């Protein structure tokens, strides 16, 4: 992988992070194929505690598949995936469920349950993950989550009554209600107008600051990447081809990398 930051190699950075115990996600030689379509060929990356990592790449390069591998929605074909110090391939089902509690996933479409109200959507992960939680505690968590995303008034509405931006914010609230340590955002601003996109990007930053979460943000929205990224990785042909800050990549001399910013 080409590193765009002058004078620092990626291996040195990864070792430093490991020594400090700050690495939350570590991927080594990850591989995933669908038939003859080799989506992920050799992915190597680390995510540090409290860091927002943006992943850029053309459509169909396996960015969404990569984050689905992290929560176990897609099984890996090869490689090593370590999350919060645990090797995912060695985890038993119960341990995997426990680990999923620490990971929040904001789906591209929001993935709100159409048959449920806003309240029921937020209560769903609480009921499933924390089955014995008292009703009062559940209500206060729902109210807090809605307040965090500015949707306190929409508690009794159904998802079909909400706008695209509100649906994204509600999806984020549902994800945050379990206070995850790692957040995975799958194209959080797709299909939104520039103003709402900016609001969602600011919300991602707020989440990072308030809960000290580590995040992977898959996006095509360069403005979102500029606002949210501490570090950006570019994926091409199933491999991480470039890494650096927004400014580093923006000033790259590689015409392919520059094409993302034009």
């Amino acid at each position, binding site marked *: 992988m080409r590193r765009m930051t002058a004078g620092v190699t990626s291996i040195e950075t990864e070792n430093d992070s490991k020594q400090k115990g700050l690495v939350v996600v570590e991927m080594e030689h990850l591989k995933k194929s669908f038939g003859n379509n080799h989506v992920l060929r050799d992915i190597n990356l680390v995510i540090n505690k409290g860091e927002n990592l943006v992943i850029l790449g053309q459509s169909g390069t396996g960015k969404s598949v990569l984050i689905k591998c992290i929560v176990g929605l897609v099984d890996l074909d090869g490689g090593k995936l370590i999350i919060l110090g645990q090797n995912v391939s060695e985890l038993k089902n119960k341990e995997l469920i426990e680990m999923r509690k620490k990971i929040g996933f904001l789906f591209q479409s929001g*993935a709100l349950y159409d048959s449920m109200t806003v309240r029921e959507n937020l209560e769903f992960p609480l009921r499933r993950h924390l089955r014995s939680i008292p009703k009062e505690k559940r209500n206060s968590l729902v109210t807090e989550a809605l307040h965090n995303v500015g949707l306190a008034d929409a508690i009794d509405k159904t998802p079909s009554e909400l706008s695209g931006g509100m649906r994204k914010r509600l999806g984020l609230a549902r994800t945050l209600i379990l206070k995850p340590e790692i957040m995975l955002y799958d194209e959080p601003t797709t299909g939104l107008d520039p103003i709402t996109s900016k609001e969602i990007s600011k919300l991602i930053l707020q989440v990072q600051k308030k809960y000290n979460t580590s995040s992977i943000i898959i996006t095509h929205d360069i403005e979102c990447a500029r606002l949210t990224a501490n570090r950006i990785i570019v994926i091409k042909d199933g491999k991480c081809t470039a890494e650096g800050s927004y400014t580093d990549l923006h000033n790259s001399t590689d015409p392919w990398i520059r094409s993302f910013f034009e």
Partner: protein
Amino acid sequence: MEEPQIQHHEAEIIPETFSETISESVFDKFFLEVSSLTIFTLRFFKEVFKPPYEFNETIKQSFLIGYKSFPLVAITGFIIGLVLTIQTRPTLAKFGAESWLPAMVAVSIIREIGPVITSLIFAGKVGSGIGAELASMNVTEQIDAMQVSDTNPFKYLVVTRVVSATLMLPILVILSDAVGLLGSFVGVNIKGTVSIYLFFSMIFQSLEFNDLFPAFIKTFFFGFAIGLIGSYKGYNSNKGTEGVGKAANSAVVFASLMVFIIDMIAVQITSLYQN
């Protein structure tokens, strides 16, 4: 003399006939579908007995599938009873057997028409509904979201719907039969006067255990098939809005076909038992 150039063509695999190509792909698809449905069914039986049980969701689905289908099923049942009585009367009148009208209509409704027509209506309403709902949940990643939320989506979505459909259809058929007999009573009284007491006493005198029991039992299988096929089509739909329409459509077609196939098998088994 210049030698003529010989052009080498790569051997092309050309099917002998067009029908051969079509039949191969149709057979492949058919057997793939059958094997996939078999695996889906086996998974259902594995998950249905394994805790935790989704009681609340099963009750909710039973309400939606059963209670919400009752008006449609009742209207259909009433019309069938009425029309069947009106249509049968002239034929019986030719033989001077008009007094047999309530008994004949009752046997027809309870043994065959009630269960089959109600099941077809149920397949159209509930089977397509389940297919479309699960397919759209698939498209909008709601099923993935459930999995991330420590929920087994197969158990939560499929098992609950199949169990509800299996339990609700027999109840709907009983209600539909009852309303159908009321329709028949109205039909009888259009051109005659028969008291409701006499009408139903004639019906109950003519009905036997063998009329009621097999007709009731087969409705569980109808309900199971409709719920299972609707869920199978929706749960395994292709991504995209086109997949939602296809899932709903094929759920109705396939479930309706299965109702007739199960009915045919049930009739064979019943006739063996009666002989």
